[in-house]
């Protein structure tokens, strides 16, 4: 089998950081090639070099594609040759329709006049190929992330694609959508399309990859061939972190005390469609030192529930009571919720979590400036110590705390958001998809921190679409479906099957 792509000796530096150091990767024609590595290892950067986001001349090394040396000046050059990249952060225009998005910059037009019927017909075809059952004129903003991901793929297919690059496509998908996407990749492979898949979900990688390149600290560590022998997840982890990891979840003996947090009859309505009830009379409680999970499918209303609770940041007509230590607390604004000891770590770090132009230090202290200031005046040194402390504790990979967060890798951005809320020192920490896009090693570190928090007598509420994570971490799990809690399971009795069973049963009600 011959190689469709060979990247040799790629080195790419940013001011103060060597993101890639002499990286080699070879992708054979018609294979699914996985690219793995810890957060900040350089995976996204490597793919940006390949696709021309970083043009020839801004890196050193050679790219051979389809048997020829290539020097891309921009994305247009690589796209022309069939290299299509779907970035880690989706890049669709929310207020345009699916069809408009798919043909954006590539309109079906003659003399500048768009032929909409052709575009719609073609869109329908493409949507069928990717298995998305939506009308071409649906606005993208009305689609969930999973479906948006499929639109991105349909968009890629609308161009002549020979090498498809997917940067963490399944990070925000649930298992079912992820499986559908992987099946799609296998179909493409059968049609001779090669793909490069970046993911932190190693089970997916061992399922579909033909070969795996492992990056560590900007260098190639090894390339594993899955056609010769089955590669286990543990084997991949060993390559990534340079040692074996015995457990994915830290051992933890919960010390559970009395109930400290209660939500009673919490309801919220959709912000625009006033009569749609999104959160339906939720009752839940958390005990001291307890880690409680909320399971559910994408769109079950978990984020909406958490955000409506956190300073009414979502929805309208919100009703219900929140009690901390048996006393009702006011959570009507974010400020009040925070000062009453509630913190919410968002699932969408770029939109809701970070000030991207600011550095790590300023992001970490933003929710608790009082903690680093004296009568409104910020103490620079104390602030820096705090930031350095979190940078070390959470292993935030960066040149220093003065690095702008926009330049951090996705996983490291997540750790900055987490640091911000840990520093606010809440009584109750609500984590929404806390390990999205985070590598195995860092996940373990975050789990350890969650456990420490619980042991310190706090309450933790974890919203996650990764069931193994909930099962591995939580002492008790609620199951949410269509805005209501439909089941409650203790750690001992909970299992993936039971949770799914509850959801299916709830859906049939």
């Amino acid at each position: 089998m011959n190689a469709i792509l060979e990247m040799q000796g790629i080195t790419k530096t940013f001011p103060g950081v060597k993101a890639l150091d002499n990286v080699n990767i070879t992708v054979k024609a018609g294979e699914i090639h996985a690219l793995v590595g810890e957060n900040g290892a350089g995976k996204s950067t490597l793919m940006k070099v390949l696709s021309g986001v970083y043009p020839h001349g801004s890196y050193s090394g050679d790219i051979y594609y389809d048997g020829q040396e290539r020097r891309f000046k921009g994305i247009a050059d690589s796209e022309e040759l069939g290299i299509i990249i779907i970035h880690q952060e989706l890049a669709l225009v929310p207020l345009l329709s699916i069809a408009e998005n798919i043909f954006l910059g590539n309109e079906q037009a003659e003399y500048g006049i768009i032929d909409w019927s052709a575009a719609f017909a073609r869109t329908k075809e493409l949507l069928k190929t990717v298995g998305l059952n939506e009308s071409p004129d649906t606005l993208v903003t009305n689609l969930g992330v999973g479906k948006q991901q499929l639109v991105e793929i349909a968009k890629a297919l609308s161009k002549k694609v020979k090498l498809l690059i997917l940067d963490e496509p399944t990070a925000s998908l649930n298992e079912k959508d992820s499986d559908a996407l992987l099946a799609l990749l296998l179909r493409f492979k059968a049609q001779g399309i090669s793909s490069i898949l970046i993911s932190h979900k190693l089970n997916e990688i061992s399922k579909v990859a033909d070969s795996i390149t492992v990056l560590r600290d900007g260098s190639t560590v090894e390339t594993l061939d899955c056609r010769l022998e089955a590669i286990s997840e543990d084997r991949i982890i060993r390559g990534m972190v340079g040692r074996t990891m015995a457990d994915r979840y830290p051992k933890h003996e919960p010390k559970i005390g009395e109930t400290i947090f209660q939500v009673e009859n919490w309801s919220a309505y959709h912000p625009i469609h006033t009569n749609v009830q999104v959160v339906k009379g939720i009752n839940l409680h958390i005990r001291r030192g307890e880690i409680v999970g909320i399971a559910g499918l994408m769109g079950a209303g978990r984020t909406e529930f958490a955000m409506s609770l956190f300073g009414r940041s979502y929805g309208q007509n919100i009703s219900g009571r929140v009690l901390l230590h048996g006393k009702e607390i006011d959570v009507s604004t974010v400020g009040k919720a925070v000062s009453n000891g509630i913190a919410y770590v968002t699932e969408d770090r770029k939109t809701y979590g970070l000030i991207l132009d600011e550095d790590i230090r300023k992001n970490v202290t933003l929710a608790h400036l009082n903690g680093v200031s004296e009568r409104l005046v910020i103490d620079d040194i104390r602030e820096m110590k705090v930031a350095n402390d979190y940078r070390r504790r959470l292993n935030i990979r960066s040149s220093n705390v003065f690095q702008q967060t926009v330049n951090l890798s996705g996983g490291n951005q997540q750790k900055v958001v987490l640091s911000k809320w840990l520093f606010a020192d809440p009584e109750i920490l609500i984590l929404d998809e806390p390990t999205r896009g985070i590598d195995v090693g860092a996940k373990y570190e975050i789990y350890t921190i969650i456990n420490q928090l619980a042991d310190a007598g706090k309450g933790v509420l974890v919203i996650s679409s990764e069931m193994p994570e909930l099962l591995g971490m939580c002492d008790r799990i609620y199951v949410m479906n269509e805005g209501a809690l439909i089941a409650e399971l203790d750690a001992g009795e909970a299992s993936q099957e039971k949770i799914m069973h509850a959801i299916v049963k709830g859906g049939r009600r």
Partner: protein
Amino acid sequence: MDTRVADDIHAPRQTSWLDFAKTHFRDYGMLLSLLAIMLFFQVVTNGTLLRPLNLTNLVLQNSYIVIMALGMLLVIVAGHIDLSVGSIVGFVGGLAAVMMVRYGIDPVTTTIACLIVGGLIGAAQGYWVAFFKVPSFIVTLAGMLVFKGLTLALLGGMSVGPFPTVFQRLSSGFIPDVFGGEGFNYTSLFLGVASVLALVYFSFRSRANQLKHDVETAPFGLFVFKNALLAVLIISFCYLMATYRGLPNVLIIMAVLIALYAFVTNRTTIGRRIYALGGNEKAARLSGIKTERLTFLTFVNMGVLAGLAGLIFAARLNTATPKAGLGFELDVIAAVFIGGASATGGVGKVTGAVIGAFVMGVMNNGMSILGIGIDYQQVIKGLVLLIAVFLDVYYKKK
């Protein structure tokens, strides 16, 4: 797992000159361009630019632009714009004139009342922007028309003046010399030396602190050079002014305000929050920042400063005219952007805005001395704005 980053936490902080110059080019580039522009006009005007008399004029002509640039910086950093400041200048100036000249109200009461009115105007506009999310461009465009019209109505289309001498001193007065020097104002020189000493003390202290805590600092040579340059500039400026009539009152007001706003933006929680608000409003809100109130306050603040500028401008002309303040908003906004603020919010510095204001001021002044017509002055200023922002964007991408 813990050893991975441990080694790079204490990476060397004393960067080399070249590296530092590269990464901090934008910070110093600004100041150097201003100096280059001044040098240029100093040469082509045969030394007129830096004559004490002209220097004094330069300060007086620019004071109200600089003062408004401070408020505009906050507005722009918060992600908004205020087009109405020129009209507010005219309106408040007219109001002061009517109060003092027609109704004989004393200057102090008038000044206080006018600042309050400025704040109320800012509040009225900020209210729509902050709480109803009407784009600030629209609200302040409306405000610009409204207050231009109200100025005309208030003054009945006529000029009103002159003002009591006490009020004129706001703009045309100089600080008295407590040492009673003849033809040389020792107090001015003394103030210059004192502020240099304070400046040097604070920058050494903060550098010492930074070094102690391993923060990236400028190379020592550059640090000394920067401080020495500033010291020389300030002291020679004060010396020149002292040989004429001393430091103008308005310069003192301006200097105090610059120091105050630099402090607020750099060191206080409210400053930090404004930057966060402009950088990402949603994230700021979810971090517990009262984004609406903060937006509102930046407009109130802008209104007060525009009111102050209106008073200073009226005092300088010694009369209020319906045309006062016309087009000031453009100079103010240009100053902030020349100073490196980002049009999308979240980025910008007080020092940059002040330097930007002086770039505009020196060009206005220098070109007038050269006798360049108002027509080509505008063309040149427009091009300078474009080039300055282009360079900024270009170096940001690098």
